[in-house]
Every structure is written in structure tokens, then in C-alpha cells.
């Protein structure tokens, strides 16, 4: 379960635009890392870099001392919610999660149902995904990320479209995931939300990542 991620001097250009600028960060299990910054600062790209969805132009991403993109294509145990959640429109939430779980086959249907209940969705809801409200879609996206109890959890703006009750629920779930020992990275423009959860806070601006003291931020 324990996982260590090291990003070493990673730089990323996309079509000549500098997206990540010499980023070096070290992350480990059992902690929540917050990425704060304005829109377009590079938070989502940093999550994509950690997830293996994009590759650094220079520098390295090491997962337990193995290089991402060379020794492995993706971190072995990972749940992601990057940007908007996306599922198959014609299926129910439960069916969508079943299909995803079927790829790795590490959990059973009852665990999927439990996850849905935990996230505040009705497993017996017969509505198709396209009929879901934005908040329900977001909850389903988080359910997909956490259902397999991954060692690494990457959440991009997890509170999008959620009401206050939903935000409180998600905070609670994220803290439980931390207790379980997951390494959690959350990107959000909402500083208050991040400060309430994160053990370490990073400020991302124009592709540069700076560590901030959570207590200093609070004061």
C-alpha cells in the first residue's frame, strides 16, 4: 500500500507553451497534498504528469523508485478524477462502475454498491448517466476514483458542482482515505477547502510549484 512519488526537475511544454517549469516534489503515502493556484496555472497538468497521462519534456517521475513512462505506463494502483467526470451515457451509475471495476477485477459488486452509498448515490437508481445532475456526476466520478481503494488518489477540483452537504461528505471521505494510508493529491482553486484537508500545500503558478506552510496560509 505504501507509495512514494518523486518528481525530479520535471518540465513540460505543450506546443511550445511552458506548462510545468522545473517541478521537483516528493510525495508519500498517508498524506494529503494540496495544489492551489489560479485557473491555467498547471495544477491539472501536474496531476496528469503524476498519473502518467502526460510525459515530461525533461525530468523524471519516479513511483517507488521506478520511472513512470519507462518502467511502467501508469502507477499500479491509482484512482483519478481529472477535470470533468466522464462515463458511458447510456448506462446507470452502478453499471458504469461495474464496467470499470471489471478491468482490474479487484473488487466485487457489493463493494461498488457500498462505495455508491458512501458517496451519497442510490445504487438502485435506474436513471442513465446522461440524466444525472452535475453534482451526481461529480459524486460518481469520486466513487470511481475511490472504489478500488487505490494507493494513489488524484482529485482535480473534487468539490465542483457539489453543495455544502456534498463538500462536507467529500472532505470526510478524503480523510478516511488518508487514514487508510492512501497518498492523496488534490488540485483546487478553493484555498479554504485545501487548507482544511491538506498536510502539505503547494502553490502552483505559471507552471512553477512552491511549497507553502499550511499554518502560515491559515494565519
Amino acid at each position: 500500500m505504501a507509495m512514494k512519488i518523486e518528481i525530479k526537475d520535471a518540465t513540460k511544454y505543450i506546443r511550445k507553451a511552458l506548462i510545468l517549469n522545473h517541478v521537483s516534489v516528493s510525495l508519500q503515502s498517508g498524506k494529503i497534498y494540496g495544489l492551489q493556484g489560479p485557473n491555467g496555472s498547471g495544477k491539472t497538468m501536474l496531476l496528469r504528469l503524476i498519473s502518467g497521462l502526460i510525459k515530461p519534456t525533461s525530468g523524471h517521475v519516479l513511483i517507488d523508485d521506478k520511472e513512470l513512462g519507462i518502467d511502467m505506463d501508469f502507477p499500479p494502483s491509482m484512482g483519478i478524477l481529472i477535470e470533468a467526470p466522464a462515463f458511458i451515457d447510456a448506462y446507470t451509475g452502478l453499471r458504469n462502475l461495474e464496467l470499470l471495476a471489471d478491468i482490474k477485477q479487484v473488487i466485487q459488486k457489493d463493494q461498488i454498491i457500498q462505495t455508491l452509498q458512501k458517496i451519497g448515490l442510490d445504487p438502485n437508481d435506474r436513471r442513465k448517466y446522461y440524466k444525472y445532475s452535475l453534482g451526481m456526476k461529480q459524486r460518481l466520478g469520486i466513487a470511481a476514483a475511490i472504489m478500488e481503494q487505490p494507493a494513489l488518489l488524484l482529485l482535480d477540483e473534487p468539490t465542483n458542482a457539489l453543495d455544502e452537504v456534498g463538500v462536507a461528505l467529500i472532505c470526510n471521505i478524503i480523510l478516511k482515505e488518508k487514514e487508510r494510508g492512501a497518498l492523496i493529491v488534490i488540485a483546487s482553486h478553493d484555498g479554504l477547502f485545501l487548507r482544511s484537508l491538506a498536510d502539505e500545500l503547494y502553490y502552483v503558478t505559471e507552471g512553477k510549484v512552491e511549497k507553502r506552510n499550511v499554518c502560515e496560509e491559515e494565519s
Partner: protein
Amino acid sequence: MNYKLLQHDFRTGLLRKRYLWLPLLFIIPCYISSRITTALGMPGTWLDYLCFFFFGCEPIYLNSLDKVILPVQWLSLVGGLLLVNLDYLLYDLDNAGQQIIVRSASRTQWFISKCMWNIASTMVYFIEMAVVAWFFCVIKGGESTLTQISEVSVGTYNVAEITLQDGGKLAFAAILMPFFTLAAASLLQMALCIFIPPVFSFFFVFMIMELSVLLPFPVLMGNAAMAIRSGILHPGFMNVGMEILANTVVMVGSIVMGAIGFRRKDIIKWRE
């Protein structure tokens, strides 16, 4: 091979609404075909109808350009298939596929699964074509056989070497070779989508097919998808062995090029 990935691609990729529109594309060639059967005063067989789709056009020689008549039906069928298979790979990456790929743990397996889907999708295209042809054949009172041709095909192809016993030969030239060629062209288009925007990859492959109409060389893959140019039906025309080799090279090359390209590809929204 990860069969779960294949299941996902077949489930999401083959159940798209665009397949429902395809029969409209096939109705026109079938209608023309039925007019021919009526004019000849005999019902064609199912194979007759099928062999009419990828008839193509006889080789065009540059010294007789004044007689050029482009095979509009053939170009429409080729373009139709390319459009059907155009954007699924990128569409899936923008949607549920992103969750699938991180769980699959392998970019190569994910891409190979897309290649399998691509060939399956081409197969669905041909199956729909066969179903529409069967309906027309039945309506016109023809025989539902895939082994026998009638005087209709002999008249349509107007090639001395074709006899009523040559159903298999004609099926190879007019169905199997177009299927093989279009599967290769569609794979090439999908592999190119990894490097360039889908609309450019479509036009690139479609231009090759158009060029094939004008230049009768076996290496230009479109020639193999025009039954009338097949060396099997007309020994003086295209060398079938060369055509199979050229298509195999395109097919394997596209899979290898795509798999290598996809290993390096950044998975972001393709419009970003």
C-alpha cells in the same frame, strides 16, 4: 491481449448512433443495381448486389484524361467508412476511456484494442452493406446466395473472363479485397490521428484513395478496393499479390507506428 479492453471498445465503439445511418449510404448503390437487374429482365443474386458496391472504375490513363469519370459511388463508400471510424480513439480518450486506460496499465494494449475495434467496425460496415443488399435482392425476387452470380454481374463487369461459375472469384475481388483494403486504410487513418488532428488524417487517407483512382499502381491501396481493376477478373490490370502485400504493409505499419506514437502521446483533450 486484454479482452476486457476489447469488451469496452466493442460496447462503446460499436454501439454508436452513426452506424444506424449507414443503410442510407448503401441504399443508392442497391437501387442502381436493382435498376440494372430490371433492365436486364432478371433478378440478380445477393452476391450480384454485393459485388456492385465496390465496382470502382476502370484504370484512368493520363493520355485519355478527357474521358475521366470519377467513381462517385466508390468514393462515397470509402469516405463513409473513413468517417465512421474517424474519431473513436480520441473520443474515447476524452470520455470513459481515460478511466479505462489508467486501469489497463498498458498504453500498448489499449491501442491494440482500438486496432481490433477498428477492424471490427469495418466488418460491421460490410455486414450492414450485406444486409441492405439482401433486402433489395429479396424484394426484387432474387436468390439469396453468396456463391452464385447471374448474368447481371457478367453484364455489369463486362469482362470476358467472368462466367457464371466465377462467383468466388468475383466475391474475392469485389468484397474481400475492398474489406481488406478499407480495414488497412482505416487503421492508417486512426494511427495518423495520434500525430495530427482527425480531420487532417481523414483528408490524407482520402487523398490517397482519390489518387488511386487516377493512378493505377498496386502500391496505391485504393486500387485494390476497385473490383473492376482486379487482376483476378482482368489479368492485364492490377497484380493481386502486390496489392495484398501493399495493404499488409500499410496495416502492420499503421499498428506499429500507432503503438509507438501512442506510447509517447500526451493524453489530454484533443482540442487542447
